[in-house]
């Protein structure tokens, strides 16, 4: 039995490795900065433009000119402010409804053993494959039958078709990952299925609910196509459409500054929500809340 020794692999000196490590770190920061600049520039540009008016808009400058006239005009525009309220209501309501239905569906699909569950789950996924345009005309009919045309509730109903599939999917997989024994313990403790859901599972699903809720809120808040199609009059419009239909002081002026101001304003609530819930999501994931 011959013992074979492998020759040590060729290696550089210690200082070479130090240099390599420094170059790598530097490269990492450079690329992260590049990505950040690329991603954030459009938003920065919007902010910069929103503080300019008149001719200033057409001069290239990276610095904001700190003229808040656009915002002033915007906040005195009743259509826009109404649209802001409508958007809030519609996004909030459709998020809540899709969370409630999604949680109930997820509990049924993720836990209760009944055979059509798999098929339903796949069907739910199929729904979200179709592009919005495909369902548009059918949805239009449905809205007509429900007599919801030109009402914000038409949007609440139609947004469910966008938000429910992924809400159900994410929550189902989350519920599946919760230990079955927790639920069994609750059943032994005398809980009904509903009480198991509300008192044991829901408190543990905080992170999943926060993330799905956030996603569906953003989706509903930014939705354009349904909002344009199902709403006829200004007082029922939501923000994305209202921005698209902003008009300047004369027919020939494109109110670029105001549009930018509106876009910035509309992003702010989302930013706040993301900041609030993002902390919740991270806290929930790292606290080991799920492990018993």
């Amino acid at each position, binding site marked *: 039995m011959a013992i074979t020794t492998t020759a040590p692999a060729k290696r550089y000196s210690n200082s070479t490795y130090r240099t390599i490590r420094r170059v790598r770190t530097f490269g990492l920061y450079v690329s992260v900065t590049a990505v950040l600049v690329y991603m954030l520039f459009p938003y920065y540009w919007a902010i910069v433009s929103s503080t300019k008016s008149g001719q200033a808009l057409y001069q290239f400058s990276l610095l904001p000119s700190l003229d808040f006239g656009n915002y002033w005009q915007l906040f005195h525009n009743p259509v826009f402010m109404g649209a802001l309220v409508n958007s809030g209501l519609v996004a909030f309501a459709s998020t809540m409804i899709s969370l409630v239905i999604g949680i109930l569906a997820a509990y049924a699909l993720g836990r209760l053993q009944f055979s059509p569950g798999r098929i339903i789950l796949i069907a739910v996924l199929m729904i979200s494959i179709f592009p919005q345009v495909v369902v548009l005309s059918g949805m239009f009919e449905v809205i007509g039958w429900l007599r919801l045309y030109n009402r914000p509730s038409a949007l609440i109903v139609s947004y469910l078709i966008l938000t429910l599939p992924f809400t159900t999917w994410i929550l189902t997989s989350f519920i599946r990952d919760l*230990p079955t024994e927790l639920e069994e*313990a609750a059943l032994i*403790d*005398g809980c009904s299925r509903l009480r198991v859901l509300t008192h044991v599972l829901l*408190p543990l699903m905080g992170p999943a609910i926060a993330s799905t809720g956030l996603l569906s809120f953003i989706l509903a808040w930014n939705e354009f196509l349904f909002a344009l199609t199902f709403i006829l009059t200004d007082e029922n419009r939501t923000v994305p459409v209202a921005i698209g239909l902003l008009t300047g002081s004369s027919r020939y002026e494109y109110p670029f500054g105001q549009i930018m101001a509106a876009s910035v304003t509309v992003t702010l609530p989302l930013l706040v929500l993301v900041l609030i819930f993002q902390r919740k999501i991270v806290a929930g994931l790292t606290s080991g*809340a799920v*492990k*018993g």
Partner: protein
Amino acid sequence: MASVTLKNVSKSFGAYDVIRSIDLEIEDGEFMVFVGPSGCGKSTLLRVIAGLVPVSEGDVFIGGEQVTEVPASKRGLAFVFQSYALYPHMNVSRNISFALETARLGRDEIRRRVTKVAEMLKISHLLDRRPRQLSGGQRQRVAIGRALVGEPEVFLFDEPLSNLDADLRMEMRFEIAKLHADVKTTMIYVTHDQTEAMTLADRIVILNQGRIEQVGRPRELYDRPANRFVAGFLGSPRMNFAPLDRAASSGSVLRGVGGFCHSAELAGADAPVEIGLRPEALKLVSAETKGAIRGTFERMEDLGYEYVCYVRLSETLVWTVRSTGSPLAFAEGEVVGLSWQPVSLYLFGDDGRRIDHGGALHLALGASL
């Protein structure tokens, strides 16, 4: 308190039979332990009793009442899970009181009961903590407290101690025994640790592949196992087995490995095909000893309080010998003898069943050496 009766209970998951027509009577106040190898269906059987898993066939009675279709929440049982399954978002106090809240008991009554249980289990100082701030042993106590507080008719335990380290396990074992002596409630306890089974049980059920192999008092199962499986399952190190040489055996003379040769008058029983001897029944003797079987001394383990020796009888067969006596002066590779009292020899038939020889077993003279 209540008795538990299973009548012809079966459970299949799809085409896979996990529990196969089990009949069992568990008396009121009894401490019943289910043991068996991993995957034999212990947990499933316990869940069937709890109502967490519906039966495929058969009936479950608790306290004489038919409960086969009664949901888990209405059976009045308590269940202690292997993973404890404490509610992570509730503190200890709420974990314990949750069942009482669900049952809509008064606030004072709840507080009184929680305090009593917490004192009993020495967890009063932990009531405000979350489960993740507790050690394994403390979690276990909380889980038992949660079971205890509802004053259930029957306690069900599913390997409650298997996540604890050895010392703590012993301590908790003792406490569970004490608990049973105190509350005298029917307890059904699943384990794969035979020490727990032997020490805690009034009676043991030995399960294998979804069937009951034997039910009985621990001593009874140990001394008079019904079959080879039970004999091999209880005892540590496990029983030594060796096949008998059928061709060489004739009439009442049995021959086997290592020069084994006994004569036995077995009234009407099937011919034994295998012998079994517990490690502590064997004695290491010199190779020339009359009646001893011979093997090669392989290795000795000194555990401080006892010695475990390994003796090779054939290519494939190594027997263990356990003794508490002084160190044995055999060298590795030396040929040694093994002897035993005739009563401690077990004989097993073709179907694995033990054949009672009533100690009427003799050396077949002159044949051994």
